[in-house]
């Protein structure tokens, strides 16, 4: 899994690539926690490069989302595809979080 945090139009974009599984999911959680510690409250997670996610990945996302909400902010996702989209649907994550087709739409919101 590869994690890249950048600022786009003043907003934090976390781009995730590869596989988010039981082995790599903690890296996502840690990477996001570091940004929250740095004062970030809102996060756009770009999953365009994510090929695989398991319940360990969902767990890492959920605790990140809870942290952001506790900080008074929130999380949104964009560019889900294939099995990642399917896992978001069957887990209810697609109803729990704002989901955008592409990054530019997420940035407009």
């Amino acid at each position, binding site marked *: 899994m590869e994690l890249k945090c950048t600022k786009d139009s003043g907003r934090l974009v976390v781009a995730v690539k590869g596989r988010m*599984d*039981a*082995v790599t999911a903690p890296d996502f959680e840690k990477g996001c926690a570091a940004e929250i510690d740095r004062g970030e409250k809102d996060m756009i997670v770009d999953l365009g490069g994510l090929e*695989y996610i*398991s*319940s*360990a990945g*969902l*767990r890492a996302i*959920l*605790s990140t*989302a*809870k942290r952001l*909400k506790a900080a008074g902010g929130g999380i949104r996702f964009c560019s889900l595809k*294939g*099995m990642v989209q*399917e*896992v978001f649907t*069957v*887990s*209810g994550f697609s*109803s*729990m*979080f704002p989901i955008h087709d592409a990054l530019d739409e997420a940035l407009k919101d």
Partner: protein
Amino acid sequence: MGRRAETLCLPAGMESLEAFRSFVLGRAAAWGLPESVLQKVDLVLEEVLVNSISYAYPEGRGQVEVACSLDQGLFRLTVSDRGRAFDPLARKDPAPVTDLDKAAVGGLGIHLVRAMSDEQAYRRTKDKNELSIGFRLPDQTPPTPPRTT
């Protein structure tokens, strides 16, 4: 008569995940499972293995065995351990939670196993947990070619 199951038995540790994965996906790919089914197998395998590894042997480490077979359009994955008895299918599937404050962290693994596979069966025989998951292959009938008149 179907194919006999092919099995791999390794210690119940996270370091075994990758070997199990390449064994199962290697077999499944060799048997011609399409990418869409391979991804489901990949996910279900991780969920079931991580549970065996995390919960089956609270004191010390045992072994986990993974078997796969293909029979009449059904790819079957069976994960067994000799840990404490636990029937994951007896758990009520959680009602979908869409409120972040009410969502519990965890507890989604077994839900995904059900959602991503076509058949599930649990057996306890002697001291063995055996969870068997079936994936139905898409119909192989080739599409009718378009007419060219």
